[in-house]
């Protein structure tokens, strides 16, 4: 073995090691450097060389928490995801809708039961035939860029949604497709939507081709942006244009900064037409791991958790006992399982009904949701004026389930699994990574009546586009968002209407009832039609409503929020959020 110590050139190695140590500390410093290019604008500039007292560990809570919130009326709230595009004409994903409530207004806004009330339009009249609307705009409304809202902004905003090159806005276009002349414009055959006219700067006239019940609640709620911001922007490039990252509206908060994966900062729009917001600044911090939310609340890093992830049902009791925190619960989504309607296994209505009878859904609410939810047998949010439960409901009754299955020709095989003509009752329930064990519980309950289901969990990206939207699934477990739309119409068309749904459910009678819900402007009539629709849907049982989990919003008790019946409506009322002493 060579004697290392006697190596004739030890200096070079020694030098190398010294140099390496020096270099590594340089790397360390350099790596620290770029992360800290500027002093935050809201911090008072510190003289160079001042003792770094504010970073001493013991004072950190003051700089991260209560100090900031109490002094400057800044609220920090969490969100587990950030938007992709804040162009509300090209994107209708929930992120754009949620974050849009801070910065945008429509002509109408929803009240607590989702009825349209005046917003940018201070009043409107409807023609007796239901085919014409005249909106009177509020005067003196200022956009965040200082310009004043006029009728031309409304027309331009709606035309941006309907623009033929705006492919990704196709689904928002559905809200305007019944306006006279919209179809020609959308096909590129006209230069404007003929049915929308602006007799003067504060009047918008809409002429409809046919009656569309949700127009005031849904179409007129769409954000109005200043037309100047979209002059010269190609609608095919909406999401690539800087305006998609720097939205300008008339809303109570201005969009100040968007740091990817980190935060979005909003500042009060002092000239807001509805009165200056009571908070000065809202920071929406991206918190990717929802399990850290309780820690962030308790350390006062955030004062509100609600969008996308509030606190979980398991943390509910502990937070509800803590006087520093206030909890609010709202229904928001509805978990359900779709059966492929044209699959021989599920084509018999009695089989589908049996599968629902076999599941103790109240037990799922009690044990999985720990009581923070309910069974909702309709795709309409309970907060809505239109909410109704069907008369036909499928209570938990295994005897009935077995009897229906046996009537459909399924008899128990030797292994306990039902069989018919030698074929066992077996299928795969495909679902994405819901943070829940409900699929396993349903699987066990089905097993009790001899149905053998296996569960295939996929990540959302693999499930949603290539499997679910591509109509490849026999049995799909998913949820429908019902809590962010201002009219019950919104989720119905895509999820249950025969031409668009994914499980092949097709009953001309249901489709007819669905169209009927749109073809009246009268609330009582519409409500009755929704009741008829929901009843028909329930009788056909093309899917099983599992449970509707509550969103649990948690906030520092010092933060006062308006009383609403939906989490989404907290956002539409953000100007009234305030800190109390």
């Amino acid at each position, binding site marked *: 073995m060579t004697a*290392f110590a006697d190596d004739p050139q030890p200096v070079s190695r020694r030098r190398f090691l010294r140099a390496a140590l020096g270099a590594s500390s340089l790397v360390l410093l350099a790596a620290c450097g770029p992360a800290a290019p500027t002093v935050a604008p809201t911090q008072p500039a510190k003289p160079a060389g001042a003792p770094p007292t504010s970073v001493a560990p013991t004072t950190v809570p003051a700089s991260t928490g209560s100090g900031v919130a109490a002094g400057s009326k800044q609220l920090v709230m969490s969100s587990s995801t950030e938007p992709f595009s804040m162009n509300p004409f090209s994107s209708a994903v929930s992120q754009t809708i949620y974050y849009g409530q801070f910065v945008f207004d429509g002509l109408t806004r929803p009240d607590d039961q989702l009825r349209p009330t005046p917003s940018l339009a201070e009043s409107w009249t409807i023609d007796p035939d239901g085919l014409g609307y005249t909106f009177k705009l509020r005067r003196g409304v200022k956009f965040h860029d200082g310009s004043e809202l006029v009728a031309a902004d409304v027309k331009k905003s709606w035309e941006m949604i309907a623009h033929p090159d705006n492919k990704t806005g196709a689904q928002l276009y559905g809200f305007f497709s019944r306006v006279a002349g919209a179809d020609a414009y959308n096909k590129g055959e006209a230069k404007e939507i003929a049915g929308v006219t602006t007799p003067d700067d504060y009047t918008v006239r809409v002429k409809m081709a046919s009656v569309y019940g949700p127009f005031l609640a849904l179409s007129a709620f769409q954000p109005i942006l200043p037309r100047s911001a979209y002059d010269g922007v190609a609608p095919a490039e909406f999401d690539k244009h800087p305006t998609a990252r720097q939205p300008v509206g008339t809303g109570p908060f201005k969009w100040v900064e968007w740091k990817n994966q980190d935060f979005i900062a909003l500042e009060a729009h002092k000239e807001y037409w509805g009165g200056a917001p009571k908070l000065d600044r809202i920071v929406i911090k991206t918190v990717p791991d929802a399990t850290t939310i309780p820690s962030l609340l308790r350390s006062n890093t955030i004062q509100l958790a609600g969008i996308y992830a509030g606190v979980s049902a398991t943390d509910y009791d502990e937070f509800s006992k803590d006087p520093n925190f206030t909890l609010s619960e709202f229904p928001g989504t509805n978990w359900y399982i779709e059966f492929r309607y044209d699959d021989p296994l599920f084509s018999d209505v009695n089989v589908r009904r049996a599968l629902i009878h076999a599941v103790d859904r109240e037990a799922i609410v009690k044990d999985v949701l720990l009581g923070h939810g309910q069974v909702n047998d309709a795709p309409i949010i309970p907060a809505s004026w239109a909410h109704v439960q069907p008369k036909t409901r499928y209570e938990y009754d295994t005897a009935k389930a077995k009897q229906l299955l046996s009537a459909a020709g399924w008899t128990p095989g030797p292994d306990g699994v039902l069989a018919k003509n030698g074929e066992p009752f077996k299928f795969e329930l495909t679902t994405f990574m819901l943070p829940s064990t409900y699929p396993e519980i349903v699987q066990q309950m089905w097993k009790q009546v001899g149905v053998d289901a296996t569960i295939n969990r996929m990540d959302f990206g693999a499930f949603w586009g290539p499997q679910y939207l591509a109509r490849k699934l026999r049995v799909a477990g998913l949820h429908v968002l019902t809590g962010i739309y201002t009219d019950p119409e919104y989720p119905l068309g895509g999820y249950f209407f025969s031409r668009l749904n994914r499980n092949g459910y097709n009953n001309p009678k249901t489709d007819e009832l669905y169209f009927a819900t749109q073809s009246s402007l009268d609330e009582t009539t519409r409500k009755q039609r929704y009741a008829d629709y929901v009843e028909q849907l329930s009788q056909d049982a093309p899917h099983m409503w599992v449970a509707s989990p509550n969103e649990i919003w948690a906030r520092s008790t010092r933060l006062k929020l308006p009383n609403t019946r939906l989490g989404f409506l907290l956002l539409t009322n953000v100007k009234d959020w305030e800190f109390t002493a």
Partner: protein
Amino acid sequence: MGRYILKRLLESVPVLAGISIITFLVIRLAPGDPAALLYDMSQLSPQQQEAIRRAMGLEDPLWVQYGSLMGSLLTGQLLSMRLHVPTLQLVADAAPVTLTLAALTLFVGIVLGLAFGVWSALRANTVTDDVLTVGTLLGLSLPQFWVGLMLVYFLAETLRWLPAAGIAPPGQAPGGPLEILPYLIMPTVALSSGIVAAMTRYVRSGMLETLGQDFVRTARAKGLSEQAVVLGHALRHSLITVVSLLGVLIPILLGGAVVVENVFALPGIGQLAVNAAMGRDYPVVMTVNLIAAGLVIVSNLAADVAYGVVDPRIRYS
């Protein structure tokens, strides 16, 4: 030596090209449709869905998509599908956080790993050694996210000594090195727990082996102090272990950053990579993968060069 480095760097070009092809095939063969994740397609007909995919270039032949992706990347024009900003800018924004965290972790891992390893070897088979062995076993077995969550619970939530998340007060730009430091203490501990443990074990066994060798006895025999024997002779001989470990640490650090950045809500490369993979943001996945691969190639090369300097028996020609 210079020629050797140049040769290795030239060799890395086809390696990176191969990695780009494999990355592209993997992300395109993995099931997923970025368009369906970006836009609410639940209300659209199949024709309308296809029109959106075509507008995003997702209906082109695969080789066309690969060519345009790589072409844009090499000219710095490649845009994220989700965020519509250049992927290189996203990486540049996220890199400082991850690099700082990685540098701190390396520093802590090497310093503590060497210290514990030497200590453990010198006190071999004593109570001190046993305690350190149990400690390293824990460090190796406890998952980083769990260590992170426990740290947050005790140090941020209960004691309120350290901030729970981020690298600055929410909504503010990060401050100077001293202001960032408190935010990085817990992430560094979580990320380095396993590395310190592994390093300790390697250094301990390397030292034990070295301490029994002839040249150490010779050093002692010529009357050198114990300090000079251990630090000047035995430890230097064991450094080769450390260097070889450094070569494989970069991928471990990047992988660990994914977990730790998630727990501490740090806007770094790990988060960027996870969000891009979950959202099927192919351009970002490709950019991050190639940069990570480049880092691994460079760190392996650096380790190989360092071998030659630390161990004179190794010569490159």
